[in-house]
């Protein structure tokens, strides 16, 4: 076995050809290489060394992109062929020929990746890195950190940590080979899933990309809860725009996309119509107290609205509402909310006129606890009659969402009711009872 380590050569700073205006400071260095004729880069901090090597020891039963294992001065490392990993054409070299190998060190794990040719080390300013564009096609966007132009060439910077990072939940590092085995399975599964996705939707990889942009710009996650809305909205969006305009390029566009998502009367007191519709779904209750949880209440408009509705529907019963939000600024304003004259008629009986305007009466006030609280932490609450969480489930990640829905289910009393956003849908274990724009579910 041969391994000729090549010294890392840093390109001289500020090439003469480079225009003077690009005097940005060099704070990001990458090793550049080519794959199927395109230029790529990897952050130099992940690169341990580069080498020429060949005659890898074949590992039976490994995924196709694993070329085998290799003895790097006594350490056994696994070698992944990046071209095969990304489904790019790879020329098969002769048995004895040497391949260009980049040795990566990610956390404690060392891997070798095979590329077509290693070019050089390029220093750039990290400010010049552009976000990845959806139509790169060859390589899944989530593996791309960004794209950068240098010396007339475009380099795609790969996020090797995403590609190879071991599962962070696991504290005990597994042997490299085992880890790799898992990666392979995952990667195989991933590519299979991607293939299936492409088949099922045929044309629209772009829609999944729009979904990803929404999550990175606005924290909105496309999940079964809102899939139905998302697909309809995407179709509408697509018909209104064409070509490159389809994608959401900035936060304001994501806002525009989500404009249609919000439930009626978001950010203000519920309109009469919506309030009456909500009142209609409230079942008769015989109890001394009604417990309500309103996670993600924001500035508290919906809490005040719902408190009034409950008071009207159950005038004799004591009502307790726990309203939380993790946005300190929004929740701080909630308890002392004052309104101008023109509030919906529905609330008139529950409001008093004060010096600064209309405010809710003490009886309503006493029924609500506004709390600075993150629902992802423990939620110490008694058994609940109602949960009000409009447009909130869509803004937690899929795993947290699942956990939260489980928590909701556990905390609701039998036949308890959950009111979610008008464009949100719940699945098994919930019976839809909503009507007239109010989306509500009964447990069981």
């Amino acid at each position, binding site marked *: 076995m041969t391994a000729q380590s090549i010294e890392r050569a840093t390109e001289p700073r500020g090439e003469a050809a480079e225009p003077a205006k690009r005097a940005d400071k060099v704070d990001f260095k990458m090793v550049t290489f080519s794959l199927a004729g395109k230029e790529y880069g990897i952050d130099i901090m992940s690169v341990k060394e580069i080498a020429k090597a060949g005659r890898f020891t074949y590992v039976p039963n490994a995924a196709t992109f694993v070329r085998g294992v290799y003895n790097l001065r006594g350490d056994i490392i696994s070698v992944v062929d990046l071209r095969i990993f990304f489904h790019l054409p790879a020329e098969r070299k002769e048995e004895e020929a040497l391949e260009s190998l980049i040795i990566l060190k990610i956390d404690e794990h060392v891997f070798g990746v095979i590329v077509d040719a290693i070019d050089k080390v390029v220093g750039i300013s990290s400010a010049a890195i552009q976000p990845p564009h959806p139509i790169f096609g060859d390589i899944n966007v989530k593996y791309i950190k960004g794209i950068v132009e240098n010396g007339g060439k475009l380099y795609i910077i790969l996020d090797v940590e995403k590609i190879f990072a071991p599962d962070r939940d696991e504290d005990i590092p597994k042997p490299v080979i085992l880890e790799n085995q898992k990666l392979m399975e995952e990667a195989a599964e991933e590519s299979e899933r991607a293939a299936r996705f492409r088949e099922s939707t045929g044309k629209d990889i772009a829609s999944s990309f729009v979904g990803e942009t929404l999550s990175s710009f606005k924290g909105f996650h496309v999940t079964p809860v809102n899939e139905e809305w998302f697909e309809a909205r995407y179709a509408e969006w697509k018909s209104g725009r064409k070509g490159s305009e389809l994608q959401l390029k900035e936060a304001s566009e994501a806002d525009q996309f989500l404009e249609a998502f919000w439930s009626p009367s978001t950010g203000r007191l519920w309109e009469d119509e919506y309030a009456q519709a909500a009142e209609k779904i409230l079942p008769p209750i015989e109890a001394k107290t009604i417990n309500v949880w309103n996670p993600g209440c924001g500035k508290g408009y919906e809490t005040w609205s719902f408190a009034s509705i409950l008071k009207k529907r159950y005038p004799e019963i004591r009502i307790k509402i726990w309203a939380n939000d*993790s946005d*300190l600024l929004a*929740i*701080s304003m*909630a*308890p002392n909310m004052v309104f101008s004259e023109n509030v919906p008629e529905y609330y008139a009986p529950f409001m008093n006129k004060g010096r600064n305007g209309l405010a809710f009466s003490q009886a309503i006030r006493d029924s609500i*606890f*506004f*709390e*600075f*609280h*993150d629902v992802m*932490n*423990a939620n*110490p*609450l*008694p058994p609940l009659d109602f949960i009000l969480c409009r447009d909130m489930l869509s803004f937690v990640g899929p795993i947290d969402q699942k956990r939260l829905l489980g928590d909701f289910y556990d905390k609701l009393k039998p036949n308890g009711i959950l009111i979610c956003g008008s464009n949100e849908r719940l699945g098994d274990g919930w019976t839809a009872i909503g009507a007239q724009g109010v989306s509500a579910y009964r447990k069981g």
Partner: protein
Amino acid sequence: MRVEYINPFVEAAFNVLREVLQSDVRRGELYLKSTSMPVMGVAAIVGLAGDVEGRVLFDMDKPTALKTASAMNGEDLPTLDELVKATITELANMITAQAVTKLHDLGFRFDLTPPAIFTGDNMEVSNSDVEALIVPMETVHGKIEINVAIRERA
């Protein structure tokens, strides 16, 4: 934690620290935490009872505790002796008491338990199912973190 409880604690901490240290105090960003967290070295704890249940924990490292105690006593205290511990305990008591007084004016009834102080290396508080509000205070003598966990009695 109820929104109404936040300000009294922040204000009390700010006022008392500025008064006893006779110097500028800066408040850091407030945040919530529910995982177990390391204690910097000196921690004074005051329990709360009444309408609510909870505790307030004042956490700082040893040099900060020494310097703060020295400033409060007007003499140089180089070792973590009884006087230093008593001073930090008193500081915790003053801040919590002032916060509770403010809360009382707002109509909330809180009682205090006598403060206790813990010192040592590599300590950790873990009551992971309790969410705590962290109020970081930057003083000239170092950082003091006030960790408030209060919940309504069910």
